[in-house]
C-alpha cells in the first residue's frame, strides 16, 4: 500500500503546490524527480521519510497531510468513478466500503488496501473501521469520504479519525442530508466512450 501513498503524495504535491515543491521534496529524500511508480514496490521507510519531509516543507502535520491527500484523491476522475460504482447513493457507497478491498484486489491482485468495516449505529450514523499497518489510513479515508459526499451531493459531517485499540482507526460519519445538492454526474459508461459512441 506504500506505493499508492507515495504516488498519491507526489501527485498531490505537484497538483496543489507545484512541480518545484515536489522536486524539492524528491531531492531531500534522495528520490529521482520522476518519482514513484504505482506498479512498483517500495520500502515502508521511504514512505515515512516522504511524509515527514513533506510535512516539514508544507508546515503541516502527518494526519492533516494525509487527509488532504485523501480529499485530492477523490477528485481524480478515474478513482471517483470506480468509487461511484459502489452504489447509487452515499449510504450505498458507505456500505460498499466493506468490500472496497476485495474490489481493489479484483482489479489488481497485489494492491494492498486496508480492510474496512462499516458499523451502522442508525440510518444516519456510521463508523468505518480501518485495519491497516500504516498509521493514518483513516485520515486518507476521511478526506476521500468528504470528497465523495460532495460527489453524491450529500451533506455529511465527518469527524477527525480516532485511533482505537490495536491500532484500529475509526472514522465516524453523520449523514445530515442525502440529497443536499446535485453532486457530480455519474453514468455507468465512461464519458469519453459515450462521446465517441
Amino acid at each position, binding site marked *: 500500500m506504500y506505493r499508492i501513498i507515495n504516488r498519491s503524495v507526489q501527485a498531490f504535491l505537484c497538483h496543489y503546490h507545484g512541480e518545484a515543491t515536489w522536486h524539492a521534496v524528491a531531492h531531500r529524500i534522495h528520490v529521482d524527480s520522476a518519482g514513484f*511508480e*504505482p506498479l*512498483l514496490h517500495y520500502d515502508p521507510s521511504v514512505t515515512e521519510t516522504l511524509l515527514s519531509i513533506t510535512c516539514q516543507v508544507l508546515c503541516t502535520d502527518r494526519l492533516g497531510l494525509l487527509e488532504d491527500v485523501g480529499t485530492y484523491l477523490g477528485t481524480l476522475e*478515474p478513482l471517483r468513478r470506480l468509487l461511484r460504482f459502489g452504489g447509487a447513493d452515499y449510504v450505498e457507497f458507505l456500505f460498499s466500503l466493506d468490500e472496497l478491498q476485495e474490489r481493489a484486489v*479484483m*482489479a489488481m491482485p497485489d494492491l494492498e488496501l486496508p480492510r474496512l468495516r462499516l458499523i451502522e449505529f442508525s440510518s444516519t450514523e456510521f463508523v468505518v473501521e480501518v485495519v491497516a499497518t500504516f498509521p493514518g489510513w483513516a485520515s486518507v479515508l476521511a478526506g476521500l469520504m468528504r470528497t465523495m459526499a460532495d460527489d453524491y451531493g450529500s451533506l455529511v459531517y465527518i469527524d477527525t479519525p480516532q485511533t482505537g485499540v490495536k491500532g484500529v482507526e475509526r472514522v465516524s460519519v453523520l449523514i445530515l442530508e442525502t440529497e443536499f445538492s446535485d453532486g457530480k454526474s455519474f453514468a455507468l*459508461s465512461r464519458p469519453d*466512450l459515450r462521446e465517441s*459512441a
Partner: protein
Amino acid sequence: MSETGHTKCGKFPGLGTTAIGLLMPMFLWVDGGGIVRDLGPTLEKVLGTENARGQRFEALFNLLLVRPRGGDLDRPTSPADAVVLTQEVLSRGAARLHMEMRARPGLTLRGTSVVLGNDDGSGVLFNLTFGIHMGEAVREFGLSEADFAASDLAIELLYLGEANAAVLGELSELTARLELARRSAVAQSMTDPLTGLANRRAFELALTEEIEAQKRGGIEFSVAHVDLDYFKDVNDTYGHAAGDQVLNIVAARLSHELRQTDLVARTGGDEFLILLRGIADREQLLALTDRLIARIEEPCRLGDVQCQISASIGFETSGGYSESTLPQMLMTADRALYAAKRSARGRTLPVSDRHAASLPPEPDLETPI
C-alpha cells in the same frame, strides 16, 4: 403463467410478470401462438417501443444461433431455416440462443428459454443478457444500475473494465518511462560523456558491422588512430579543465572535417579512433590525415590564453581482415601510430610535428585466420 396456488416440489407459487421483471429485467414471454405477451423493463427500454406486447416474436427479433435442449448448435442459413428454428424455439425452448433486435441489428442478445406450463398455449419464457455487448448497450441505451438485477454481474463487469483500463494506463506509462530510460542508458553506454563522441564500445560495434558488411560484398574502409601530441603540456600548464576544453575543441574539429558517414570515437584520454567508410587508398588517406593534423594544430583559445597542440595518426585499411582478425587491424593502426610518434621524436619544431604512417600488416596477419 401456471397458477398452482400452493407450493409443490419443483413448482413455484404463481409469480406475476412484474415480479418476474424484478428478478429478470430482460425477460421475454412469448405465448404458444408466437405473440409477445410481456417483457422485462430493461428489454422494453432497449427495444425502444412500448408496443412490443401483442407483436409477433419474429417481427421484433431475429434468431442467430440456437442450441436446443439436448441438441447441437444450429445456425439458420436461409429464411425458411429461420422460420423452422423459430418454431422450434417457441415450442420447446432452447438451452442457449443468440438473437438480435430487428430495430438494432449487430447488438447480440444472449440467453436461454424454457417452456411454461403444461399446456401448449402458455408459450416460452426467455431470460436475456447483453453478453459481450454489455458496455455497448450501457452506452447506447444509457442504462443505469437500476436496469440490472442486483444478482447480475453487469456492474462488476463494468467496474472491472474501468479498473483494468486504469491499471493498463499506468502500466503503459510505466513501460514508456522505462523505454525512455533504457534508450538513454543505451545512448550513454555508447557515448563518451565528455565530448559526446562515440566511445570505444560503440566504435567496436560499428567496426564489427563494417567487417560483416564487407564480407557480404560491402565497401572497404579504413581505421585511423589519432593521438594528441603536447596535450599533457596543456593539462600541466592550465589544468584539467583546460585540457577537457581542448579535447572538446578537437572533437568538434574532427567531426567537422569528416563526413557524416565516418565515425569518430574518443577511446582514451587523448586518443581518438576514426572509422572511414569507403576510403582505402593510401594516398587519399595520407592527404586526409594531413588535413586532420593541420586542423588540430590550429591554435585553441581557452578564455584569454591560447594553446597549441598537434597529433600523430596511424591508419590501416580493411583489406584482408575478417571479424576474427579485427583486434589485429586495430593493433596495426596502433603500431602505425607509434611509428609516426617515434619518427617525430628527433624533430625540433613542434608545430611541424605531423606524421601519418601506415605499416603493412605483419606477414602472419595478411591471411585471415
